């Protein structure tokens, strides 16, 4: 072969190399990069459906419209009527910042999109004008939600109010919040804010539970303790050189399980922990959905009970809700609910039904049993102790005028130098209508002083509204 032909073939090979490089490049792009760039807000494909479909409304349980879309000359505009009150639940739907909350998890329903299929697409092409999305009806009560939002005010924290038997969430507030209507203007501030206003503390916030965890330790104790031996509290206990104190160093003397819970005795509960061991404690905690993901319409964090507890001091601390135990407020509202509901924990729901623009129901969400936490007898026993907590123990501020409430306070030490104030409970005690979980983050006060009064007002108001 002459030089000319050799050179021509070399050029052919390099050109083929370029083409094959192009094939590899495109395949690589498709496999590794494509998914990532598709969600870019400049990709109008994401929005093309939304321009042609009037996005559905989000409505509370009584029919109050919380969010709707209106057609303006510039296209659709999403109208968040109550701004901050629902920021974490409803979330936002923004071209710049994407979607969150119900706007994200029920996007398809709000747009009345079935899963993408060619036939449906063809129907969209053929039909004229904007079609209508479906409406999402929440289990929330607008009056109660607004009340809870106001009550929490500027305090950092969270409130969850739910029906212990059906799992319906009546109210869920997280503070600080943001206003989805002015997201564009305030995005920089929201992102820069060190208190993370975008975080839905009710379901994504993980807190040390403190003494409210004693309900779980108590459950484990009732189920697993062989003797009814009393505990002796001298105000502090030395576990392998680690000193665990009671609040204020008060010595409670000799007490049984009931008295220990009512007085929220750390010494007694850490003794229980040491007595029954971490496996049994973990087992009970996991029945209460610790280390389990809670199925919910919004993304939830998992409450954690550590996989292995290596030292006795850690076990003692865990039994009183300190150590490495972390919980979400929603999970703690479910703990209270389960005790109020004879030991049966139900799946929390926040969306009641999907209706179309003619108000006919397309889908209804029903109550489901999530976990059988304990026997009805044990639940009854726990309830009686919780009643005493409210009547004469640490939770006196949660006492209602005419209705018997049940509850447990918590004052949780954490990385900040101020404790979290907790209260979980339910009312009326004999046949509960509502369960609540209240946490005031880094409050510095006890659960009984700070969280219990809020819980009292919430339970009062909730029962009033529900009995209307």
């Amino acid at each position: 072969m002459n030089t000319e032909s050799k050179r021509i073939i070399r050029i052919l090979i390099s050109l083929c190399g370029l083409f094959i490089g192009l094939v590899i490049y495109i395949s690589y792009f498709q496999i590794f990069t494509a998914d990532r760039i598709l969600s870019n807000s400049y990709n109008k494909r994401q929005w093309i459906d939304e321009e042609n479909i009037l996005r559905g409304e989000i409505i509370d349980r009584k029919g109050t419209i919380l969010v709707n879309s209106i057609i303006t000359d510039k296209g659709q505009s999403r109208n968040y009527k109550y701004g901050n009150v629902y920021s974490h639940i409803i979330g936002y739907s923004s071209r710049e910042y994407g979607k969150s909350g119900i706007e994200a998890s029920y996007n398809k329903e709000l747009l009345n999109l079935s899963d993408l299929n060619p036939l449906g697409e063809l129907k969209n092409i053929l039909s004229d004008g904007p079609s209508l999305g479906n409406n999402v009806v929440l289990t929330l009560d607008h009056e109660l939600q607004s009340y809870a939002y106001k009550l929490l005010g500027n305090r950092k924290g969270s409130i969850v109010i739910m029906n212990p038997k059906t799992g319906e969430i009546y109210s869920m507030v997280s503070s600080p919040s943001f206003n989805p209507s002015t997201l564009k203007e305030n995005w920089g501030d929201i992102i820069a804010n060190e208190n993370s206003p975008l975080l839905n503390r009710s379901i994504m916030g993980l807190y040390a539970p403190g003494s409210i965890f004693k309900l779980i330790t108590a459950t484990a104790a009732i189920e697993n303790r062989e003797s009814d031996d009393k505990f002796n509290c001298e105000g502090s206990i030395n576990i392998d050189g680690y000193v665990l104190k009671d609040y204020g160093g008060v010595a409670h003397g000799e007490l049984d399980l009931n008295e220990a819970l009512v007085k929220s005795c750390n010494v007694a509960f850490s003794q229980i922990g040491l007595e029954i061991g971490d496996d049994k404690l973990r087992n009970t905690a996991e029945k209460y959905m610790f280390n389990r993901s809670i199925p919910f319409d919004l993304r939830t964090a998992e409450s954690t009970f550590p996989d292995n507890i290596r030292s006795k001091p850690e076990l003692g601390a865990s039994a009183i809700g300190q150590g490495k135990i972390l919980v979400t407020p929603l999970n703690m509202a479910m703990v209270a609910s389960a005790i109020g509901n004879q030991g049966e924990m139900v799946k929390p729901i926040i969306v009641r039904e999907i209706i179309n623009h003619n108000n006919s129901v397309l889908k209804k969400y029903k109550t489901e049993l999530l976990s059988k936490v304990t026997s009805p007898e044990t639940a009854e026993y726990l309830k009686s102790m919780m009643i005493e907590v409210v009547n004469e123990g640490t939770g006196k501020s949660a006492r209602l005028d005419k209705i018997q409430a049940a509850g447990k306070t918590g004052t949780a030490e954490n990385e900040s130098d101020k404790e979290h104030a907790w209260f979980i409970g339910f009312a009326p005690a004999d046949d509960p209508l509502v369960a609540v979980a209240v946490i005031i983050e880094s409050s510095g006060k006890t659960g009984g002083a700070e969280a219990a009064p809020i819980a009292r007002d919430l339970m009062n108001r909730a029962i009033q509204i529900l009995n209307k």
Partner: protein
Amino acid sequence: MTKKLLVVRSPQGLLLIINILALLLLMTFNIEFEKNILFIAIALIFTIFLSSQVLYKISNGDTYIFLIVTMLISIGIIMIYRINPALGFKQVIWFGVGIIVFFISYFTIKYIKHWDKLLYFYLGISLALFIATLIFGTKNKGATNWIIIFGSSFQPAELIKVLFIFSLASYYVNKEKYNSWKYSRLIYIAAVYIHIGFLFIQKDLGTAMLFFLLFMSILYVYEEDRRLLLYNSAGAVVLSVAGYFLFNHVRVRIETWLNPWTDIGGKGYQITQSLFAIASGGFFGTGIGLGHPAFIPEVHNDFIFSAICEEMGVLTGIAVIFLFMIIVYRGVKIALQQQNQFFRIVALGITLMFGYQAFIILGGVTKMIPLTGITLPFVSYGGSSLVSSFAALGILQLASEEFDVEQEDEDEHRIQEDN
């Protein structure tokens, strides 16, 4: 003939089936039935079928390149019609014109002799066209490379591409004659850079790059003075770096290539929209009519490949790349088998023109290399591009044939002289 038509296994049969299926789909795509689409379907299938039959009667050369090109044309017309029926209709007309030009170019080149003796003529026409563009040119997509004649716009660079290949071939065929004068090599290189310079002034960077690659390839194969290769490569590097710092439009191209995401709404808009289209198609595509390729500006033109990837899938995109690869392979084979040196160089030049042009735009719209606006041969919408590509294809078809003895004699004589 009908029997032959129905043979599915023959490439023509496959092409026919693809065309009928796609065109049927397009008929249902628009709600109102248009007479146009029926016309397009019949005209397209008839033209492809008839022209390939005629070609095999008159030419004993390559039987693949024309088929591959009609496949590319079909994919292009289907996509253009789906994006914009009016343009699709026009493209079918241009395709008809292209076929006529293909045969005209085939016969003209075949029956007129001495194409290798017209170097000054080619250079003169090119220069005249460049100057005409400079004076009468209108701006389009940031490049001033169109002139309007009798109400229809025309891109002179498309014609100059073919003339350029003829000039290169004429120079190397007669290099003894030209090189007898001391400075002729300098003049030759100056002429090449005047071409590239004019294109640069028009801001037609894609075509400038194409000319440079063509020149370098021919230089690599035929230039005896190997130092020239080195000088030109070094010169190109210096010029590109200088271009980057001196000219804003060059800088913008590079910056939007390196990171288009910083200015998606502005300079990076086109390329990012193209990437969104390719990404949303996946390997199998959304299906014709179910994607949104119209979000890309100039989608029917430079960005037709992104639309193909979105609606027909990346696998179809890869198939298009392989079709170009086969054209390049067949073209190089034609060049290697051609005994006449002038047509050997011309065949190589035309093949490389198709190959490089395809790579420049395919690499550009996928962000593999910086994006420079240039058409995808036979697929993009555009009369000038289609007609000039068909003219070039006609020449390549001719070059695939064995020539008469007289020319071969001449050629052998020359080879002996070379040695």
